[in-house]
């Protein structure tokens, strides 16, 4: 039965308009990122396209901002701090989150979802609130302006992400796999080590990546409880954007965007890898 209400041409035009609107929204999503990439190669320290750039004149482009960033002492220190703090807090967060996810998976009592919700609270609590509280705490115990203080704070907000990621991975494991293993005589611990844990690894890795990004991009806690030793990339960008807005900031922003894109591709590959493993194991 054909639809009397709308003509095929009307449908086509309607669909085209809809897709056009969607494309505009996608442009909105990507515009600020797309804009900074070419501007970071601007030969002059302006934040807009010079006539030379629009004419694609090679002389209007330059990599000097990137060279300045790499030669700069402050940016080198900032990258070093970000990586050190990121790796350390990721390590802590991954351990905490994975253990907690395993614990929640085992738990059979009614309070499980309550504990789960409570453990996820750091994600939703406004960081400014946590930063103020941390300032008071650290002032008392002497962790202000201290790298360790920032690491521990970042671990606290990153751990819930690991928890979610590992829980999702564990939930995706077919329970028949471990039952099959046990029916073949494997003990509980052996089953866990050879079946459950390997299948959960993509979740752990995915969570660790998320944790690292959370720490790397975090600004507010670093602003409030950090000091000279803890100037991270976002902290350096904050000064750069507010005070001396030079295209060096754009160069750093471009690099961060490229890293984010690579990370997404990496995680998509990871996900496909994990799916293939589960499928091959389940047969």
């Amino acid at each position: 039965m054909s639809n009397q209400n709308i003509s095929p041409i009307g449908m086509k035009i309607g669909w085209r308009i809809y897709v056009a609107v969607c494309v505009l929204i996608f442009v909105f999503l990507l515009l600020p990122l797309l804009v900074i990439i070419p501007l970071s190669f601007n030969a002059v320290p302006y934040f807009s396209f010079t006539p030379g750039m629009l004419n694609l004149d090679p002389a209007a482009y330059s990599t000097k901002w990137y060279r300045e960033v790499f030669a700069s002492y402050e940016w080198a220190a900032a990258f070093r701090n970000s990586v050190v703090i990121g790796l350390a807090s990721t390590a802590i967060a991954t351990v905490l989150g994975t253990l907690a996810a395993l614990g929640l998976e085992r738990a059979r009592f009614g309070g499980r979802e309550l504990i789960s919700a409570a453990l996820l609270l750091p994600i939703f609590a406004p960081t400014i609130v946590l930063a103020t509280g941390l300032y008071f705490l650290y002032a008392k115990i002497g962790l202000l302006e201290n790298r360790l203080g920032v690491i521990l704070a970042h671990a606290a907000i990153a751990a819930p992400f690991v928890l979610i990621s590992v829980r999702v991975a564990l939930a995706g494991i077919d329970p028949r796999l471990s039952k099959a293993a046990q029916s073949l005589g494997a003990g509980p611990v052996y089953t866990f080590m050879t079946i459950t844990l390997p299948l959960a690894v993509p979740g752990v890795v995915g969570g660790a990546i998320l944790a690292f990004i959370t720490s790397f991009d975090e600004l507010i806690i670093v602003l409030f409880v950090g000091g000279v030793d803890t100037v991270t990339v976002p902290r350096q960008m904050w000064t750069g954007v507010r005070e001396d807005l030079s295209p060096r900031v754009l160069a750093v922003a471009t690099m961060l965007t490229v890293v984010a894109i690579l990370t997404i591709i990496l995680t998509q590959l990871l996900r496909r890898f994990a799916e293939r493993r589960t499928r091959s194991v389940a047969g």
Partner: protein
Amino acid sequence: MSTGMTAEGIAIPVQRRKLFGRQGAGTALLLLPMVGFLVIFFLTPLGMMISRSAYDPTSGEALPETRMALKNWNPEQGVPGEPILAVFSRELVRSLGDRSIGRVGSRMNDRISGAPQLLRRTAVAFQKGTELPPSKVLASVSPDWGEVGTWSVLKDSLISLTPDKYLAAVDVVRAPTGELTAAEGGAFINLRILWRTMWVSAVICVSCLILAYPITYLMTQVSPRVASVCMIAVLIPYWTSALVRTTGWIVLLQREGVLNKALVALGIIRDDQRLALIFNMTGTLIVMVHVLLPIMVLPLYSSMLAVPKSYQRAAISLGAHPFYAFWSVFVPLTRPGIAAGITLVFMLSVGFYVTPALVGGAQGTFIGNVIAFHMDTSLNWGLAAAMSTILFVLVLLIYIFYSKKIAQGGKMFG
């Protein structure tokens, strides 16, 4: 070995073994690290903040005997007598010496402006040493000491628990007489910013929903490969920090920015008509919608995937206009995703600090910015703590409401 029963009723030996062995101890051990860690580095800071907002023992410690003496005094008795004044004058001089006088001054300042200076002048007057009785010295410093209200405020200021920071957070002040009045002649600065934060966050939510819904629906209608590409396009801004994206928007929207330059070059606007799209509320709105849009997409997508495509086709086959089928069949079935998205975006939006600080200008600030101001500029930590607590309680209530709803409905993130 225990005995079990087959379906036919034959008894057989059965060995039961739980999948992970005994439950309780192991589970607790696994949960303990993260729980303990968060108790120390999440709950404790919050607790200290809440305590900071209402509890201040330092002023009482500056003038302990005066506090004790004033315990039995109340305003109906009139201005305190010479014995109390003597204790007060002695302790005040000592607090001037060890600098703790500032604590009392700042507490009193919540209700009587100029109190720190008054206390200091009074302390200096007593420090000089005199034959006159304390009441005469006080009278020579200021007529305020002859007011019962001043002493009432002093008494309250020496008490450890105080509601004054919370009152200040909502622009209310306790007059010396004890009644509540509007602070600063009814300017209601803080309340206005709080209201603005919530109102703009609501607008951001709705805008995100309006923009996210079409593209998410598109992702369910196209081939998996195209959907993947679309998803990557959504995830790229999500995985870039808000700071990077905000920088991009500054470059785009500022007066000498790419957008304005393009519009002028194309002749759409004149050079002096450049659009003020940033460093004001518009800027905050645009950038925050951009930052939070991917967060709206994710729950919407997972709830859309759960709706069978056959439903809309069935509606159309029964004669419905395709758009009507979409609106009355598909959309209501995505309500869990819509609710989750709106709640998430709102919770995150009210707590924002970075974006309003960078692109908000003067009118685009959120409550987070006011809190930061009181922490690092005005150094009124008690007020910052009170406002933080209010913000936290607000988000916590929404979170509890959200968790309860999602617990009924299924997964939180999809």
